[in-house]
């Protein structure tokens, strides 16, 4: 019920998990007016990430993502945290700028521990993610 992460930033947060098998970019995949993943064919197409704890295996592309996190936070459609298997500097620079918790590296793999809909707690200081309550 626990995942250790390698690197982390931000305050402790709790929220509903969204676990993705596909990577993420707020520019390539996300409608930045609704917080819904709209890229045709994305494995989470149609899923809202608003107020969620988002697990993504990888980060995709894009410098423009750096402003996008601040923008969606301002619009109140940001996730509560980004949990990446592998991320890139843009995601980290963007999340730190927006004050959104972000982590990289995980053990074990989230698919063994957490499912979409579970309530999870992210503690960047202890580099720890815990499942608090299973989805009904």
């Amino acid at each position, binding site marked *: 019920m626990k995942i250790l992460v390698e690197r982390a930033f931000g305050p402790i947060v709790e929220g509903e998990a969204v676990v993705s098998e596909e990577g993420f970019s707020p520019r390539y995949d*996300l409608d930045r007016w609704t917080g819904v993943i709209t890229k045709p064919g994305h494995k989470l197409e149609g899923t809202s990430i608003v107020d969620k704890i988002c697990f993504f295996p990888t980060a995709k592309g894009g410098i423009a*993502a750096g402003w996008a996190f601040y*923008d969606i936070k301002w619009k109140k459609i940001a996730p509560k945290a980004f949990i990446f298997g592998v991320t890139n500097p843009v995601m980290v620079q963007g999340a730190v700028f927006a004050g959104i918790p972000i982590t990289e590296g995980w053990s074990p793999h989230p698919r063994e521990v957490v499912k979409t809909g579970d309530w999870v707690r992210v503690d960047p200081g202890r580099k720890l993610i815990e499942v608090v309550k299973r989805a009904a």
Partner: protein
Amino acid sequence: MELTPEEQAILGGGRGEAASRALKYQIEVGKFWGAKRFVPVTNVHMMGDIEVMGDAGLEFLRNEVKQRARCAVPTTTNARCMDFAHCERMGQDAGEAVKEKEIIAALRRMDVVTTDTCINYQTVYQPHLGEHVAWGDTGTVIYANSVFGARSNFEAGPAALAAALTGRTPAYGFHLEEHRKGTFAVELNAKLDDLADWGAVGKLVGESHQNYYAVPVFHGYHRTPGADELKHLGAALASYGSMGMFHFVGVTPEAPSKLPDEKMVVSDSDLEAVYRNYKLGDGDARLVVFSGPQQSLFEMKNLSLLFQNKKIKSGTTCIVTTNSAILKQSHDLGYAKILEDAGVTILEGVCFYILQNLSPMREKNRWTNMVSNSAKIVNIIGAHRFNTILRRTADCVEVACSGVLR
């Protein structure tokens, strides 16, 4: 992180509130990546326009100006979201144009040189081997690291702006020797006659190795690639693979003498499969785009040859984007006139995928497909719900003029 006396002074407000805030922010980012120190940078390239920044970013910038934020090193801007000469006809918001002008004015007050180009490496500043810079737009970063042997991480808008104000960036990633080694080898057993082919290579290699720290080493190619070819390769690797560096044996300055153990091959049949796998949707062929990155002078020249004595099919929109310097030369050399006579819309200082109001623009024009010779733009425009199709340059011109998509 260890701070020099100068950095401690910046942190303490010696260079103003904005620089102090910027350094605090950079320390948080540096700590995440385990950076032990800062490195001074000589040049900054930043992304900042109303489409990517939104009202939140604009408000942030207003505060920076109030705090008299000022660049400590030469700083240029990336492509933006509006060409004011075309924005009304393109259906962009007048209110957003006012904000865009405010952003440009704010950046200039901070001493940012608003070049509005994503091909700074071809037209504005070429750093030398080992030079530390802080560049944004992933295509510029991978070119700086790979082709020049300069050193930069992907620096997002807020991070690049912070580097501009402090004149430094945290030493992690591609600033460090240990991340600049090749991690897997790619044999190029293909002709690669068109720029789209180079982007397709970037797609194949990037998609299969999505990792910022994966550094492909290309080898076995039968001739020396040109700057535009490496540009499309790099832009696609950065886009599909989130990669910041590649090596090209015999071409790039830090290419290793020994190949990494992991190996892959890209052949002509792999490329044909890339083109074949794009779904044509409803067959809509009314939008053809040459952008992402902006066109170089030689790309403009080639397009003018392909569009000579041709006309864009009625009802089709064909867009070319470049920067102001290339556009001026293209006018002087007659390339722009040929394109305009053919019915091409040339946009200056922008990139298609960040155009303000792009989703409503797509709906209003009932565009469903976007055809391009840029593998990068084909990848990154999905959130606007385009079905995208990569085609070779001459094929794109053919689609634009015939209205038939194959």
